[in-house]
């Protein structure tokens, strides 16, 4: 509680002008003993009389956090706990609890996300099979579990047993024939539609934030943005429940992305149990990083991949401490999931491949081709999906989310049922495509013409000519590929929980399997070609189509998400194919290159940009030569900056300033004459502080002076009591001079996670640069370079622009000649969206 009264510590020389140093030493002496001896502690002494104002130091919805401020706050809190530690056993326990709370919270997060993932897996499997039929002997079993102990299964039809009844058998009493096919078809569509409808209406009624994959938003949140309720209890519950429904409805979506969101919700909820994390937004993000690792860990059964995913894709600030916590969270989550054993095979993942056949050098060529395919698919998917989502965002069509889901589900179900490969649950499909055709397999994919040579050993089946089954399977797979590609574009972004890992992998696996079979047949019929001659003699087993499917899956996923290291690790953990790292790496790298040639951003960045979240990507380079003065607000033609003076404004003045402007913070200067910087006060803190002062303190009226200075100025005797607001003043705002290159400013913003930065010249405040200004500037430069990029015309403004009139013009005594601004100003008008609320 007390930490909110003075969260600021000096971290640079900025604003030192306003602190009279002589006074400070005199006043600060008492407190330095317990407070680590920092200069700022002097303000504590003054504020000890005032009670801390609740709410100061928190953030509004859709605002950007200030990492530097949050980290300082945490250090301050830590110091306080450490200094009290020796006082009593109770304080000692408290400090121990505090030290351990980081590990405790990730343990709890891991436990919860593992358990929820188990629940989702089991329920989704059951519900998916509910579309086909039901287990009469035990209603809660899915098809496979229903036939668990059955002895009636045959080699050809492995999942047939009398306990499992299809709907046709139950309703019209016959298992075969066109009548039962139609009945099953109708029931399939019925269940798919009702699951989809339930999912979307639950999302709409209870938690609209539960829709989508959630990874773009989590990326944005982790980079320091506040979306209230996005990681809340209701979102968690609805996302868990509707995820099962969405997966079961047969839509072309996966549960992996949403599981990351679910895990992050767990992390957020558990962090409320620990004051260290609940009161500090920066610390909370460390927990969320670990939680996202746990999410991927349970989604794919890939703990290391999860940690790397968190590092490569989602996290913004990832110190080593967080790495270890992520590692631990991923471990705990995977352990819990493993002990729940949702698939009944004592493995974490559904698709575990068991072959260890070697691969040959010439096969790198088809692998790279698959990589090219993956990159092309990724580029196509991102363009098409973004175009579709933009349409949804900007036209009337977006007003009917329920109808959209129903239509997509209906089309999916109607087309998917006739084709056995699309009727299958997508993860089952991937599993089947990954599997190699051993002697034990009986699916039509493995229908090769056998020359029953009984003397061979089981493991080493030579390449064989494909039979009719394989050709018809390829035909069906091609149709399935086209279907999946089209449906995934329209599915990702509808208002149900939807991830795209699994559909992308399925597309890649289908393409890979087709290529694999083609190469295999090529090698069989042309084994005298020079590339095959060395490795593929007659009767040798040299091509494994399942491996091609695996490589294709990795390539397609890489093309869409543009991940590299984490993706390869996830895929090899997923399949257990340790010897296939090089093919995977080759394909993933190629797909990233090809994809990057068409557009540098992955699907998540593209969605972030589409929604206009204030996300400053650390991966992009800034290569322009602009200066801070070109970017700062106010622009040359704008009214001057809205500022506060440190001791001669009244409460009323400040209130009018707040009401007339929409800025989220105001620089505080010494006086109108000198214009030297004292500090920075946030709008929210000002509002809260004034409101609470008016309520609680006696004698604060509209004409009271507001004093940000160390000591109150001498006032006439009859004037009302001054209001001291030094406690909410940030006395060490980050400053740069007007000639700082933007390259450096962008770097500072990225690395320190600043929210705003003041621009000074000889200690005089000239203007301000916010994260939003930087993003606008980047976008502007991008549009100059690539004029073909679609403009953001569709975002409607909610607030006046940042550089609008503030109604408080003030004379500039020391005006500095700014460079003329080259860019058109009207462009920026259209780019203002959500970021507006981060306006200062």
């Amino acid at each position: 509680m007390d930490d909110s009264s003075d969260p600021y510590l000096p971290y640079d020389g900025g604003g030192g002008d306003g602190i009279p140093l002589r006074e400070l030493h005199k006043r600060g002496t008492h407190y330095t003993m317990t407070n680590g001896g920092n200069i700022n502690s002097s303000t504590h002494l003054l504020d000890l009389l005032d009670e801390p104002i609740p709410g100061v130091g928190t953030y509004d919805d859709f605002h950007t956090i200030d990492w530097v401020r949050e980290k300082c706050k945490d250090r301050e809190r830590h110091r306080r706990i450490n200094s009290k530690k020796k006082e009593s056993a109770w304080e000692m326990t408290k400090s121990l609890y505090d030290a351990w709370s980081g590990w405790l919270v990730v343990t709890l997060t891991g436990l919860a996300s593992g358990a929820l993932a188990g629940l989702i897996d089991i329920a989704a499997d059951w519900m998916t099979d509910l579309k086909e039929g039901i287990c009469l002997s035990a209603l809660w079993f899915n098809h496979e579990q229903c036939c668990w102990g059955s002895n009636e299964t045959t080699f050809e039809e492995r999942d047939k047993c009398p306990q499992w009844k299809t709907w046709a058998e139950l309703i019209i009493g016959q298992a075969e024939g066109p009548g039962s096919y139609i009945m099953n078809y109708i029931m399939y569509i019925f269940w798919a539609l009702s699951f989809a409808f339930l999912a979307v209406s639950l999302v709409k009624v209870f938690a609209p934030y539960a829709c989508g994959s959630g990874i773009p938003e989590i990326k944005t949140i982790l980079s320091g943005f506040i979306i209230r309720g996005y990681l809340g209890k209701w979102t968690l519950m609805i996302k868990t429940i509707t995820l099962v429904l969405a997966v079961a409805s047969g839509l072309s979506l996966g549960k992996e992305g949403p599981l990351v969101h679910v895990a992050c919700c767990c992390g957020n909820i558990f962090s409320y149990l620990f004051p260290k994390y609940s009161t500090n937004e920066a610390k909370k993000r460390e927990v969320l990083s670990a939680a996202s690792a746990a999410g991927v860990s349970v989604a794919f059964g890939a703990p290391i991949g999860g940690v790397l995913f968190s590092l490569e894709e989602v996290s913004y600030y990832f110190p080593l401490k967080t790495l270890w916590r992520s590692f631990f969270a991923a471990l705990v989550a995977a352990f819990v999931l493993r002990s729940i054993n949702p698939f009944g095979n004592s493995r974490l993942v559904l698709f575990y491949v068991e072959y260890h056949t070697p691969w040959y050098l010439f096969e790198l060529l088809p692998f790279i081709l698959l990589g090219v395919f993956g990159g092309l698919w990724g580029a196509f998917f991102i363009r098409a999906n973004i175009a579709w989502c933009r349409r949804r965002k900007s036209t009337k069509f977006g007003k009917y989310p329920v109808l959209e889901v129903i239509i997509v589900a209906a089309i999916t179900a109607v087309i998917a049922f006739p084709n056995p490969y699309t009727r299958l649950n997508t993860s089952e499909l991937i599993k089947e495509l990954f599997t190699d055709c051993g002697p034990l397999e009986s699916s039509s994919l493995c229908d090769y013409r056998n020359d029953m040579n009984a003397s061979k050993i089981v493991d080493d089946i030579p390449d064989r000519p494909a039979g009719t089954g394989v050709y018809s399977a390829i035909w069906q797979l091609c149709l399935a590929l086209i279907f999946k590609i089209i449906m995934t574009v329209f599915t990702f972004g509808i208002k149900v929980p939807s991830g795209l890992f699994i559909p992308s992998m399925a597309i890649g696996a289908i393409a890979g399997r087709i290529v694999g079979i083609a190469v295999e047949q090529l090698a069989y019929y042309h084994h005298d070609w020079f590339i095959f001659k060395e490795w593929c003699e007659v009767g040798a087993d040299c091509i494994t189509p399942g491996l091609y499917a695996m490589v294709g899956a990795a390539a397609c996923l890489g093309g869409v998400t543009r991940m590299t290291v984490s993706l390869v690790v996830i895929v090899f953990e997923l399949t257990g194919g340790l010897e296939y790292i090089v093919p995977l790496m080759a394909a993933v790298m190629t797909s990233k290159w090809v994809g990057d040639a068409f557009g540098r951003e992955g699907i998540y960045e593209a969605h972030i940009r589409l929604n206009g979240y204030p996300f400053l990507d650390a991966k992009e380079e800034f290569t322009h030569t602009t200066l801070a003065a070109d970017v700062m607000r106010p622009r040359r033609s704008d009214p001057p900056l809205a500022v506060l003076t440190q001791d001669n404004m009244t409460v009323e003045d400040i209130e009018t300033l707040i009401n007339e402007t929409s800025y989220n913070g105001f620089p505080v200067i010494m006086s109108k004459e000198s214009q030297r910087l004292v500090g920075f006060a946030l709008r929210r803190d000002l509002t809260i502080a004034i409101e609470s002062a008016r309520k609680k303190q006696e004698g604060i009226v509209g004409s009271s002076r507001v004093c940000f200075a160390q000591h109150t100025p001498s006032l006439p005797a009859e004037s009302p009591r001054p209001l001291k607001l030094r406690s909410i003043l940030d006395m060490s705002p980050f400053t740069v001079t007007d000639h700082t290159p933007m390259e450096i400013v962008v770097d500072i913003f990225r690395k320190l996670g600043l929210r705003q930065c003041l621009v000074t010249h000889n200690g005089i405040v000239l203007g301000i640069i916010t994260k939003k200004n930087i993003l606008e500037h980047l976008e502007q430069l991008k549009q100059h370079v690539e004029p073909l990029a679609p403009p953001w015309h569709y975002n409607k403004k909610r607030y006046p622009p940042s550089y609008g009139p503030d109604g408080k013009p003030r004379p500039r005594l020391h005006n500095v000649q700014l460079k003329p601004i080259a860019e058109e100003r009207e462009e920026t008008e259209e780019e203002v969206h959500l970021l507006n609320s981060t306006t200062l």
Partner: protein
Amino acid sequence: MAARGARLCSLLLLAALAGLGAEAKNSEDVRCKCICPPYKDHSGHIYNKNVSQKDCDCLHVVEPMPVPGPDVEAYCLRCECKYEERSSVTIKVTIIIYLSILGLLLLYMVYLTLVEPILKRRLFGHSQLIQSDEDIGDQQPFANAHDVLARSRSRANVLNKVEYAQQRWKLQVQEQRKSVFDRHVVLS
């Protein structure tokens, strides 16, 4: 040993959620499944038996043996036997938990969308009073003494408090709905 302990733990966790006592695993929950590919003129076959892990091999499970004595070894070499376990209690409990939560949510949804508006319409005057009262409270949550009084009154009445929380939650959801479905500023 540790894995078994963890299994029990997770089971207990799940069971505690449902308020059911989960018993140790069912004897039906293990199986040894042998898949034998076609051999000579015998077609492929799947054998399934409930045996312990150490007995899970072709000789114990494949019964009756389809091939004569000398061929048994060759036949068995091709068969693949896998020992698998599951926990039917976990599955049962999970499905029951899932369905009951889903059912409750659906009921609540039906109540919120269909029943409540009707009730409100029927008790129009009264509900309007409550509504306007709450509207004031929501606009200025900590504004004046009147509100403090209202709060202390509501503290005495648990129902009011629940109602207040529910109204606040509804407003939040409404806000979310606006930003997702109408303004399209997030998650589009």
